[in-house]
């Protein structure tokens, strides 16, 4: 019988904050600008330039700390982490080593064995690096510093996780808290949330931690899961073979489903941190902290409770709608306009989720305005458009937030209700299908469905099937 092993995992999560400007200068953080058009002497590390802290970065960092039960460091400062690499024009990254802004917190996650606390060792503020692009033609490296100085927080967990499921639950929890705070959209694919996995294995029942490795470049929950499973097996195989585990940084290769050690020529991991003399320390007053506490939003649990109370939604709906603050806000604002909570919820759970999946988007990307969604729901309620048309309009709203009234008008999707045109078609359909008419009159209720279908076909869908059915009943009764 082989040995039993336990996997021990801690995470370093980098989150890009949703500020308008960089952490230490007034350059835009907007995505997709032409290379180096969002740069200045500060974020390019020009000698003599002076960084000044963005107030919003401190606010977001403290809010995330409060939401994850951290102690807020009342006197904190910035340090320089020295390293030479072209993505870093200053030759040091401004970060926090000695007095990080938040410390000793935790979040609760749900696991198969019930809820569990994952400790947060610290959260610190730092700046992002530039982007390196390999130019194959010239065989050189091109550098775009637009990302240089974009604000990040790094959330360092305690080694409290034991498997991939717990890691995913922890990341989901962080993403939920942070997106509810509006501090970041936390998209793994786009890099606004990045997770480095520190993993070691040890014999089950022992206390001493094994040698750990750090894994980088994990861009999806799937990659994280695969990487964790692969790395724990790799380490167990080494231990079983009596070989040592080397403490190293490994890069996950998603395409090949494996990781490999990253080697640097000069691998001296000595960052020679020291306090940044350009940035004066930050002292957080009780009064300011109190304002931050008051600014904490309603989080998921409270929101679910309130939605249950105020709108009478079932648990299933609550689970889905509150998974994103944006979705929850859209629900609430739309309901305020159309007074139909369950119908709003159905649209969000049905078509909205379907389209998000199909277009591979995140709830944070939803652009539909509450006014347009409310209008669509009311139009369908009044029978102005039928179900199929409503779905088509919804899709157009999903892509471009079109005004449903003008869209329906333009596309001629309005339902013909009780008009002469509709009556004429009904007459034709009845005349053309004497057998179905006879079947219906002989008590075959199903036959009317066929006649409704024929009518809808001639009307090209621009009729309300329910109303058509009623009109047919009336017509057939009259004529018998």
């Amino acid at each position, binding site marked *: 019988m082989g040995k039993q092993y336990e996997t021990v995992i801690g995470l370093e999560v980098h989150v890009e904050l949703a*500020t*308008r*400007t960089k952490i230490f*200068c*007034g*350059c*835009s953080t907007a995505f997709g600008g*032409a*290379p*180096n*058009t*969002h*740069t*200045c*002497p500060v974020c*390019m590390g*020009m000698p003599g330039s002076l960084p*000044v*802290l*963005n*107030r*919003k*970065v*401190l606010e977001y960092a403290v809010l995330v700390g409060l939401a994850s039960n951290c102690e807020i460091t009342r006197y904190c*400062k910035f340090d320089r982490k*020295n390293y*030479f*690499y*072209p993505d870093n024009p200053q030759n040091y990254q401004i970060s926090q080593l000695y007095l990080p802004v938040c410390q000793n917190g935790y979040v609760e996650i749900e696991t198969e064995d019930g809820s569990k606390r994952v400790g947060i060792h610290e959260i610190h503020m730092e700046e992002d690096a530039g982007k*390196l*692009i*390999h*130019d194959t033609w*010239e*065989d*050189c*490296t*091109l*550098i*775009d*510093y637009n990302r240089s100085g974009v604000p990040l927080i790094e959330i360092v967990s305690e080694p409290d996780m034991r498997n991939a499921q717990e890691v995913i639950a922890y990341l989901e929890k962080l993403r939920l808290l942070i997106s509810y705070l509006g501090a970041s959209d936390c998209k793994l694919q786009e890099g606004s949330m990045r997770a480095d996995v520190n993993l070691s294995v040890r014999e089950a029942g022992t206390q001493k931690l094994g040698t750990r490795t750090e894994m980088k470049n994990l861009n999806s929950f799937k990659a994280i899961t695969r990487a964790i499973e692969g790395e724990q097996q790799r380490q167990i195989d080494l231990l079983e073979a009596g070989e040592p585990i080397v403490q190293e940084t490994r890069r996950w290769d998603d395409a090949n489903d494996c990781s490999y050690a990253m080697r640097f020529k*000069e691998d*001296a991991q*000595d960052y*020679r941190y020291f*306090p940044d*003399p350009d*940035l*004066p*320390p*930050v*002292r957080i007053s009780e009064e300011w902290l109190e304002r931050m506490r008051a600014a904490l939003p309603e989080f998921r649990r409270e929101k679910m409770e309130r939605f249950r109370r105020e709108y009478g939604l079932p648990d299933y709906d609550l689970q889905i709608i509150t998974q994103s603050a944006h979705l929850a806000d859209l629900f609430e604002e739309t309901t305020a306009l159309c007074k139909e909570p369950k119908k709003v919820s159905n649209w969000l759970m049905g078509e909205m989720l379907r389209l998000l999946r199909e277009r591979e988007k995140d709830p944070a990307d939803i652009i539909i305005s509450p006014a347009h969604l409310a209008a669509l729901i009311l139009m369908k309620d009044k029978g102005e458009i039928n179900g199929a048309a409503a779905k088509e309009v919804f899709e157009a709203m999903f892509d471009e937030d079109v005004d449903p009234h003008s869209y329906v008008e333009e596309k001629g999707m309005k339902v013909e209700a009780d008009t002469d045109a509709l009556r004429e078609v009904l007459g034709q359909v009845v005349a053309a299908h004497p057998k179905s008419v006879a079947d219906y009159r002989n008590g075959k209720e199903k036959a009317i469905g066929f006649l409704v279908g024929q009518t809808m076909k001639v009307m090209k869908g621009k009729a309300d099937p329910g109303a058509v059915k009623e009109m047919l009943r009336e017509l057939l009764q009259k004529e018998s």
Partner: protein
Amino acid sequence: MAHSITDETIEYVGILAQLELSPEEKKQARQDMGRMLDYIDQLKELDTEGVEPLSHVLSVENVMREDVVTNGDMREALLANAPEEKDGMFTAPRTFG
């Protein structure tokens, strides 16, 4: 001189600072570093009981700016400092494996 710096230390510090030193420079650097450490020893003799570590030379705190974009596109001026550029980007020797 109480402190003597080994050749290994000088080599290591040189690598960290990305400096290539000649044998004469290494010798000079060893002496300089030894003197610096001697001076640190001298400072250590001071009684600092109850004195907060100084992290900034000015007695200022909480210097912050609002989250407002104040910079426009300065690419041309900034790239003017670069020895080489391509497609609006700086070029550097290849860094990928």
